[in-house]
């Protein structure tokens, strides 16, 4: 199974551990990820807030590069997923937009015919690889580790038809295959407020707090994330939440790929498990055989 792999800007910066672990577990499962050569920013929300057509153009260049490789595009950031999918769909639905972008791409001898599918790695693993093959790789089950499965907004909203738009369950399914116990987590697809942290921190912190409340009330020992922005928001702003609301949360966050890697027998360092801001050492010591 081969994909062009689009890490996205966040994974080059503060979320390298997500990149590391995603590549590692994909390889283990026989998913061949080849990084899309010279990819550019997807044209994410902040860009789209200023420039509409140029945001589509940014996505289109990535799609054109992937089309040249004749492979679908695997992404790990749900915001990149939504942005790339939006341009892909809108260019398909709107001939005028398609022609505008096509003539712009032509200036650099690029073209995009519309054949690339953009997919999140979690969906690829759960649907294409499946239970048997994932379970076959589990050498160190995450015995009863209580995990809050956190999807954030843009995994299925607005475009994901592969899971429920308001109550996705794919991550729960995967966690069970790894031997972990996904706890009841009703806020699984609610906003983390990440986009607001620099611009309106009080509103953002309120959202983080309700997520932490919900995870803690349901007995979670850690949060599994599939989005780099949710991840950094949950870990970096817990201290601010504690200060503002007089709480004392210290809930580690781990990427779903790190949890997979642990269950597959990789060591912490390979998975970047020493890099999280709130250490997961104590909970992993309790549930996972010596790493």
């Amino acid at each position, binding site marked *: 199974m081969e994909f062009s792999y689009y890490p996205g*800007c*966040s994974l*080059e*910066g*503060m*979320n*390298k551990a997500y990149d590391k672990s995603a590549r590692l577990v994909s390889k283990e499962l026989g998913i061949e990820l080849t990084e899309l050569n*010279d*990819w*550019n*920013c997807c*044209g*994410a*929300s*902040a*860009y*789209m*807030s*200023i*420039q*509409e*057509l*140029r945001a589509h*153009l*940014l996505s289109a*260049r990535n799609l054109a590069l992937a089309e040249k490789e004749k492979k679908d595009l695997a992404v790990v950031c749900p915001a990149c997923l*939504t942005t790339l999918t939006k341009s892909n*769909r*809108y260019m398909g*639905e709107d001939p*005028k937009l398609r*022609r*505008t972008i096509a*003539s*712009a*791409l*032509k*200036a*650099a001898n*690029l073209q995009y015919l519309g054949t690339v599918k953009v997919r999140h790695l979690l969906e690829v693993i759960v649907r294409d690889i499946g239970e048997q093959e994932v379970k076959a790789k589990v050498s160190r089950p995450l015995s009863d580790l209580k995990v809050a499965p956190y999807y954030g*907004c*843009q995994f299925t*909203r*607005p475009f994901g038809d592969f899971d429920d*738009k*308001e109550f996705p369950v794919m991550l729960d399914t995967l966690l069970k295959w790894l031997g972990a116990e996904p706890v009841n987590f009703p806020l699984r697809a609610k*906003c983390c*407020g*990440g*986009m*607001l942290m*620099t*611009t*309106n921190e009080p*509103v953002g912190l309120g*959202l983080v707090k309700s997520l932490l409340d919900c995870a803690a009330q349901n007995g979670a020992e850690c949060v599994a994330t599939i989005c780099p922005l949710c991840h950094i928001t949950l870990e*970096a702003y817990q*201290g601010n939440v504690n200060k503002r609301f007089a709480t004392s949360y210290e809930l580690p966050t781990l990427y779903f790929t790190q949890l997979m890697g642990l269950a597959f027998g990789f060591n912490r360092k390979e998975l970047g498990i020493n*890099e999280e*801001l709130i250490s997961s050492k104590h909970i992993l010591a309790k549930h996972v055989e010596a790493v």
Partner: protein
Amino acid sequence: MNALSEERSERRAHALGNVFLHAVYSIPGGEKIKECIQCGTCSASCPTSYAMDYTPREIIAAFRAGLLERVLRSNTVWLCASCYYCTVRCPSGIKLTDIMYELKRLGVEFGLVQEGAIAPVLSKTFVDMVDRYGRVPEIPLMMTVLLKKNPLGILKMIPHGLRLFLHGRMPFLPHRISGISELEKCSGAMTDALVSGLHPGSGIGEEA
């Protein structure tokens, strides 16, 4: 307000409304905005509407009443975090999140934003950095925005930065993609086509 200035402000509101509507109609499915039944599902689904001066439902009501300028000058649209709950729940199929993006662009284009708001500056800086490097270096982005809008905020970020640094997660140097000139060419071609008034896709001015 005297009759003349009243007429002027009405004309201005009308013009703003028209630009908005034209832009919304250019989004695939954008014409659904006509079908808003003011049920308020969007506002009730929105995680930040409680903090907005105008809720999402009220935005459409304000647009219909010719009061869009008030909405743009308020804190409303930049509180939208793009969670898309409104979009997937709207019984009329209105793409509210796309409309929020349109309002953000409209506000920036016409200089109608809330005084002192950080979010438009963040987005503009984001665009500048992507145009320069092809990707977004997160840390330089945050630092630039804080320098522009809230220099004291940098002090508050130091502990965060230090923790990231200690965990090996603080890359300082932005990476410039080699396709940046390619992107410049494409976006130059697009701007030329738009500025010269050629209707893209109409066949005028395109190679045969």
